[in-house]
């Protein structure tokens, strides 16, 4: 069954008909071609699909697109791009915190939500905040360093 929905993504409104069973992640990636948000499991276990919904980080693979209708969605494409990176993104680049990059969009979104609500977290708070974002490349060392650098600045 399809339902008409309005998705507000990165400040733009999209009207579309979505199958009830489809996830926000799949609609973002497949219907809106916003492929910066990644799918690492589809089951809420890896955090690669993290987006902000009304400013809160969610695993978009666990949210039905119909339930996201009318909410403010922010994806990695809405954070920083060709016009300039945000301080979190700059810090990740400068600290060498990016390897394969597949976890990176999710990490950026989680870090943004964390720093938006708590601009100067401790290292323990950063680690706890990141605990839903798996990374298999970096050991989290440089990711944590980068976010701590933003926290201190």
């Amino acid at each position, binding site marked *: 069954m399809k339902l008409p929905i309005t998705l507000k993504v990165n400040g733009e409104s999209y009207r579309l008909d979505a199958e009830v069973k489809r996830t926000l992640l799949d609609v973002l990636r497949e219907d809106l071609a916003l492929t910066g*948000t990644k799918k690492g499991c589809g089951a809420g276990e890896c955090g690669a699909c993290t987006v902000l919904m009304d400013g809160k980080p969610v695993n978009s693979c666990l949210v039905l697109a119909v339930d996201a209708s009318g909410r403010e969605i922010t994806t990695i494409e809405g954070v920083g791009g060709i016009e300039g*990176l945000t301080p979190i993104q700059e810090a990740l680049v400068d600290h060498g915190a990016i390897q394969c*990059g597949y976890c*990176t969009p999710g990490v950026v979104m989680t870090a943004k939500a964390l720093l938006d609500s708590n601009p100067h977290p401790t290292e323990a708070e950063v680690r706890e905040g990141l605990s839903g974002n798996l990374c298999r490349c970096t050991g989290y060392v440089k990711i944590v360093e980068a976010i701590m650098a933003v926290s201190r600045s």
Partner: protein
Amino acid sequence: MSYAVVGQRVRRVDAREKVSGRAVYAGDMNLPHMLVGRVLRSPYAHARILSIDTSKARSLPGVKAVISYEDTPKIPWNSAGFPPSPGAVLMEDQYILSDKARYMGDPIAAVAAVDEDTAERALELIEVEYEVLPPAMDVEAAMADGAPLIHSAEKNIAAHMPVVIGDVEEGFREADFVFEDRYYVPKVYQVTLEPCGVAVAAPDMDGRVTIWTSTQMPHLVRGITAHALGLRTGQVRIIKPPVGGAFGSRLGVVNEPIAALLALKSGYPVMLKYSREESFLGTESRHPITMVLKTGVKKDGTFTARQMTAYIDGGAYATHTPSFAGPVAGWFLAMYKCANIKVDNYSVYTNSTQCGAFRGYGNPQVVFGVESQVDDIAAALGLDPLEIRRKNHPCEGEVWSWSGWVIESCGLEEGIERGAKAIGWEAKRNRQAGQPGTKKRGVGMGYMMHVSGARPMLHETSAAVVKINEDGSANLIFSNSDVGQGSGTALTQVAAEELGLAYEDVMITKTADTDVAGFDIGSHASRQAYSGGNAVRKAAAAAKEKLLAMAAEILEVPAENLTVENGVVRTREGAPKSISVAEVSHKAHFGSHGHQIIGVASEEPEGNPPVYAAQFAEVEVDTETGVVEVLKIVAAHDVGTAINPALVEGQIQGALQQGIGYTLTEEYRYDPVSGRPLNPNLADYKILTAMDMPEVETILVEASCQTGPFGAKSVGESGLVGTAAAIANAVFDATGIRFKELPITPEKVLAALRAREK
């Protein structure tokens, strides 16, 4: 030696596109009329296929292709990404789709349809009649009398590799003590964040097929895929976009032939993307190994005989395993000097998913056993564990038995010294007796050696083209198999250094494209900086030679008197004269010469310099819960010249996450009776989160070698090789209990503590 670009922590060439979500991975692609591919997998671990009927699936509207064994070329092949070489034992026992199910998840059929739902429904409509056979889920079961044969090999032993040096029996007689222990290391997965198995294949009207795939080995995957399909090599074009991690999982063919066959049959592009579960069910893992180590030793810690008998569980298909047995022997031989060594490696088929490459390629398995036993030997003989390693490891100037070549440089002793200091070795060891309460702390270390490429066992060909543009910038054309490790950045630094240009002035091909770049083996065996770096340096040097020759003409000085730095050619001595690279190159293009300055190289590197590491762990064991907490890891690594220290640290730090997981939490398990995987998901297969990671300190020892680019050796794999041994030895220091099986789970710790009380 100091350099302008080499040794700098420059930003990665691909960091900005990744951090902004703009990088397009294979699974992000969309082509006009692109179909969705899906694989039908065996629900049984071992079964004969009596019949398969795809007619209903074919007639479902929206289905564009259905394939089974009947539709696949009858060409056996081997998925492992090996160049034909002395050390490659390529047993060809695979087909694109199987005529017999040899593990639960074995691809039996595949469909391509207009959307996911239609593809799923088509899979349900395929009717397969199976005759279920009993499975053999481990090496004991597979080698037992009367075990079901998975292929035709007797006792399911695919291969036996013996190595004999000297006479171990004589060596055991000479020994004051003989130690014999059995170790077991489990099946673990690479768990790339981008699930393994994603390819888009697009046919053209002339029988060619282009495949965008997440791979480590563009050229070798092209060759294997072409062979499996019965095509000429040049008819297949592999493009490697950004890859979401690899660690060996993409070291060879994954699902490219299935995607290509669907595309060629349907005439449309096909996206074949495995789910997380499928990437567990159907792609290659690390090998489980049962090892029996027997070591003869003199009172002073001199080894008189070393022997390893290893049963390697290769899973359902040969792929890497019979070749893999070679390096497994090599790691063992090479660690410690001894006149008498014997190795017997058995490659065994079982009904688990086939095993392949995972960072370290057998070395983490072997080092766990060897370094655990050496720790026990040191304890029994009352020797300092650091001293027994210093005394017996092969060093610079000696022959390294892995390659048979002389060791170019060795930074182990510096690594041991600095690592011991950083962990607080002297103060923290042997605290066992004095620790009241239920939390026991201890420290331990493990040492390892690893390769830079796989010569002389395997060919290590690389090719590079350096083009100097009319404005003085340069393009580096390379089959860039960077899968996250940063080799594309390191190679750019090598080219810039050699050319005398700024890092920003050199642009590498960010992707790999086999239609464009010359033959390169790819990313395996920690080879890119060393093998790739040498080819890049040579191509840059060739371009520079032409550049200087032209500048010499213009400046009217001999070329030998010229040097280029930061984009400017200058005289070394005599009257100061200079001209920018841009001006020379512009004149080359558009002056009387009319040519571009291009340097080309295609070669194998001269050597295979080993790298060394000493890793130290401090742990706290909770004797009430059995939980082992790693408090700190110090990883001291000799990598040769660090081309980019930030990348090098990142490699070690990331590998440690995998190494600690290997030691404490990770194990892929099967039901022994049905052969059903028990944890093919990230909830039950536990990898470490940011909260689980301990403090990590990396120490870089730069014992530069002679044959590497600017003295570089390698780093990619080595960060996890010694980790399990270091942690297990720390647990021994804390509790006095020796764990010979990984992972060291709370259940095992509690059981061992209880057993000791009795």
